[in-house]
């Protein structure tokens, strides 16, 4: 251990030890994502209010506006990034068997990645006014 300390002396900032690997970056990323989600969440509240009860054509017109589609993509991607990091912290708190922990974190990351990809796919199609699915896929 002493040889390791001499090779890799712990670094301190304001008397607080700096994480040796990527913990600090994940912590900061989670906070930045959450900070982004507060204004985006308020925008979601107002959008849900305006769109409640809207018909199909009104909804498509809303998606056709690039600002709406772009903000919705940004919101969902940020949310899935945040959820992935937040779930990692929760899992690490309660699951201690290495295999189960790795599987739970990896599995949830796959789910969030799939949801993020699907949301971008659907929003881009709606924004471009593409023909209803499954047209254009395998047909």
């Amino acid at each position, binding site marked *: 251990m002493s040889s390791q300390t001499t090779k890799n002396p712990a670094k301190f900032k304001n008397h607080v030890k700096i994480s040796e690997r990527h913990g600090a970056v994940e912590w900061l990323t989670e*906070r930045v994502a*959450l*900070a982004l*989600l*507060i204004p985006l*969440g*308020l925008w*979601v*509240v107002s959008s*849900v*209010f305006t769109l*409640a*009860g809207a018909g*199909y054509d009104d*909804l*498509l017109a809303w*998606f056709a506006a690039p600002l709406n589609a772009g903000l919705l993509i940004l919101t*969902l991607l940020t*949310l*899935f990034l*945040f*959820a992935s990091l*937040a*779930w990692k912290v*929760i899992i690490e708190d309660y699951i201690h068997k290495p295999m189960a922990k790795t599987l739970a974190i990896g599995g949830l990351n796959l789910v*969030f990645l799939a*949801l993020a990809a*699907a*949301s971008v796919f*659907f*929003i881009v*199609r*709606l924004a471009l006014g*593409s*023909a*209803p*699915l*499954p047209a254009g896929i395998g047909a």
Partner: protein
Amino acid sequence: MSSSPLPGDASNAPAADPTGRFVRQPNGRVRPLSPHLQVWRWHVTMTASILFRVTIGAISVGAAIAVGWLAALACGPETYAGTAALLGSPFGLFIGFGLTVVLFSFLLNGARHLFNDTGNGLTLKSANLLSNIAVWGPIPLAVLFWVLLFVTGRVSL
């Protein structure tokens, strides 16, 4: 679980037990129980903290539902008609109300967490206030949101 110091154990028992949290250990001595979830007096900051984890779980499910809604929308008007009928049904409105509670909870509790992360709002008084807002605030906000939806005629039963 907790009991006052037992008689006949004078060497270990304090004269008074102001906390009411002394227990008889297996070796027969009376000791204060070490702090754990069951012996901490429940505090609203604990509720806010646990509720934020629950909220993160709930909003993940909510986001998955939102992606499902996008999928239905992308499948065209015929498919979406069924989804819209489900959304407008009492069950759909109930789920919608729950999701707005979750959304407001996420916003208020997330703001509290961010504020606390900067090292602010951690005195007893402000931590209590922020936690109370984060725990109870979502309910009146969601009720107000839905009252406005019904009053403006956007949603009806």
